């Protein structure tokens, strides 16, 4: 999609009009690309097309005029050289399967979903490969709070792909004075960074609710990152990826944002609520709750030592109280600051 200045910009498709999908569409539209934004709800389509707002997810944002919402998946996809998929992990497979009906091998697909399929433990790109002919694909991830992006605040993000042209296409669609776009070839690492941090975010919520202070939070973030990297490496990621935006970057922003769903679940549990109650109170499912389960079984399968992530799992699913969990963690024998298995990579 390299082109001369003044040449007409191609239409780009964004599937999913939640807060992140709408934000991605908005940023691309603001860069002068026509955008087809696919959503399920007719009401939402009408609102976006008539009022250029999506109040359910982004209350105060005026979306780019270049966005046209549609309920017709085929209409969105056919003819778009680049497609962003921003669908929650729970319905990701269903949507990309439908996309596969019309997708052509020449089209690029970049997904921006931070999750693992709970039934199969597959990453989103693996689901994409199982359901469509797409081979030229990538993943978008990083410390990107949708609301801040819509407010025009500066941020950085990562696109990972083995295909330089996919990164280039995604970058030209997204890059602006507000957004820096970094490239990475480590798809696995970038996907896992964005996914696994949600479990640590739950622990961060617990720490906040128990009022354990900033030192404890720094301890949590660094040890959490170390465990994330350990799992990542076992699944084929490059450990250095976790030192980047999609690793430490995303982890920091998630752990310091008390508004995130994962954070709130953690806080509720620390205050003595049961998981069901906490989820009910939240009104939606936090990705981290399922991811913790997946992490638990991955750790078991690969025989990985991840005490912190395991404690979150047990607090969520085995009635360990957060206070007990922290006591246990503090009593573990401490080892090397930097995981020796990760050094010298």
């Amino acid at each position, binding site marked *: 999609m390299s082109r001369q200045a003044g040449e007409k910009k191609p239409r780009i498709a964004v599937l999913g009009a939640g807060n992140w999908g709408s934000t991605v569409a908005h940023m691309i539209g603001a860069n002068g690309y026509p955008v087809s934004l696919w959503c399920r709800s007719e009401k939402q389509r009408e609102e976006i097309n008539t009022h250029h707002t999506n109040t359910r997810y982004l209350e105060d944002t005026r979306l780019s005029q270049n966005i046209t919402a549609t309920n017709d998946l085929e209409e969105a996809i056919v003819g778009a050289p680049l497609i962003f998929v921003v669908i929650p992990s729970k319905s990701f497979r269903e949507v990309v*399967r439908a996309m*596969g009906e019309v997708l052509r091998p020449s089209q690029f697909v970049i997904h921006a979903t931070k999750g693992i399929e709970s039934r199969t433990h597959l990453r989103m790109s693996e689901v994409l490969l199982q359901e469509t*002919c797409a*081979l030229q694909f990538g993943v978008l991830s990083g410390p990107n709070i949708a609301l801040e992006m819509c407010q025009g605040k500066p941020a950085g993000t990562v696109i990972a792909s*083995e*295909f330089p042209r996919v990164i280039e296409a995604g970058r030209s669609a997204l890059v602006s004075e507000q957004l820096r776009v970094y490239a990475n070839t480590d798809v696995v690492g970038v996907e896992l960074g964005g996914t696994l941090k949600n479990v640590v975010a739950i622990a961060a919520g617990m720490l906040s609710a128990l009022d354990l202070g900033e030192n404890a939070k720094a301890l949590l973030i660094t040890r959490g990152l170390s465990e994330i990297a350990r799992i990542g490496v076992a699944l084929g990621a490059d450990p250095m990826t976790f030192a980047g935006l999609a690793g430490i970057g995303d982890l920091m922003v998630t752990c310091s944002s008390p508004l995130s769903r994962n954070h709130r679940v953690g806080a509720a549990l620390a205050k003595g609520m049961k998981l069901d109650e906490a989820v009910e109170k939240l009104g939606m499912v936090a990705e981290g709750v399922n991811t913790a389960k997946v992490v638990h079984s991955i750790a078991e399968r690969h025989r990985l030592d991840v005490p912190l992530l395991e404690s979150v799992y047990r607090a969520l699913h085995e009635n360990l109280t957060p206070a007990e969990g922290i006591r246990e963690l503090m009593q573990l024998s401490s080892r090397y600051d930097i995981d020796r298995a990760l050094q010298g990579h």
Partner: protein
Amino acid sequence: MASEVVGRMVERMLARAESGTGQPVEEVINETLYHEHLRLSKAGSSDEAKADRAFYSKIRHELPRASVNRQQRLLHEIVERYAREIQGHFDPKAYAVATKFAPPMMNALLNGLSPGRLVTRLRDVPSLDEHLIIQGEVETLQRLHERGTIVLTPTHSSNLDSMVLGLALHRMGLPPFTYGAGLNLFSNPIVGYFMHNLGAYTVDRLKTDPLYRETLKEYATVTLEFDADNLFFPGGTRSRSGAVEAYLKKGLLGTSIAAYRQNVMRGKETSNIYIVPCTISYPLVLEASTLIDDYLREAGKQRYIIVDDEFSKVRRWLDFLRGLFALDLRIYITIGKPLDPFGNDVDEQGNSLDPRGRKIDPSEYLLVDGEVGEDGVRDSVYTGNVARRLVGAFQRENVALPTNVVAFAFFELLRKKSNERDLYRFLRGLGPEISLPMPDVEQALALLLEELQALAGKGGIRLSQSVGSGDIPEIMRRALKSFGIYHTTPVIQRKGVRLHVGDGNLVFYYRNRLDGYGLMGTRRLVPPRRPG
């Protein structure tokens, strides 16, 4: 063929030099001089080595004073020398003749190894033909052969593979395939003559010059474009450990995409190239001892000390074939599902399919801004996808034979009973004094067979007839007989009610064919090989 290869190579090198994306011509030649000098310093004094030395010393003298035009001429000469050597004495007319006579001749070679002996004793020698079981997607392969060019990619355990496959192709009614054979295989003049004229080209693994490697790949690409079906061993060399290949070399595999792209760009009518995985499963492997020793020396580093045993090669071949015939053992050749050069499944009509079975046009994977375009990085990622799919196919189409299952159950039981955690120290301790009660091994075998049945039911592996029958005494009898007939020391030996280790390394070797499936709760013992 060679002149086409030379023309393209020189054109490409010049274009790269000019655009600054590659080295200047002088540097390319200097690199060749460096690599060839290194090789020739260890090459002895054969006629070929002498001729090569003379050739390169001439170039070394000329290069510093050569004009740009002269440099290009020298590059041309070097590539031409490489290409001619790779092509060998291939002659299209001889190819036509050889195609007709080769299969019976090959059979003869395998059976007797001496034509004289053949003439007199042809009737007494059972045919290797009868000892091949060809299964899997045979019909699909035959059909696709009519619709495009085939790249057959088999697992590689033995130097017999190419000949066994030659026979198998003949049995399936297909002409011989072109393939790259190591220089050492041409040393036998009879085998060499036939190999050349069957389209085998020469691969000299000692030549490390990148220019040589690239010429080799270009040669394979051109043969594919000229509709010559090819045979690539994607593992590169014979499996040292005995395990099914879990890591593939992408160099030669990548030529299928290069040839396909050229075909599409030229608007060639039968542009399709089909990659067909294939496994060859031997109850006994001719070179097993040498291969596993080599593997352990490499993998175990200083922890393992090797003991060499030398045997005349012909004698070993004869022993091997006698063993095969005497026990009526079968070699399984399994043809897997075909793939396109991007790693997609292909149906019987030759259409590429997406993972949900929907028809797609693979040439669209090559589009750049609407037109078919070159992109080396992109294509190597596609080839990586093909490699991944092939590794999966190898696992699924691998056939578990009695020797493998018995070695596996025996080995794993020994491991469990030992408190030696280090694999190499454990192997070193596997002497003839080590034994297990027969009933214990049979019990472990029963559990293993159950697991294998379940895995095979899901299409995760194939079982030979007898392994599939689940008849434990019969499987045990077959395995022990096979283990006793060919190898210098029986691999596993029964003494009374106990099974004794005969050759621990070979137990490991035959066990490894089932490595990586997680059977009996084990982890992979043979890590996938990576370059460097």
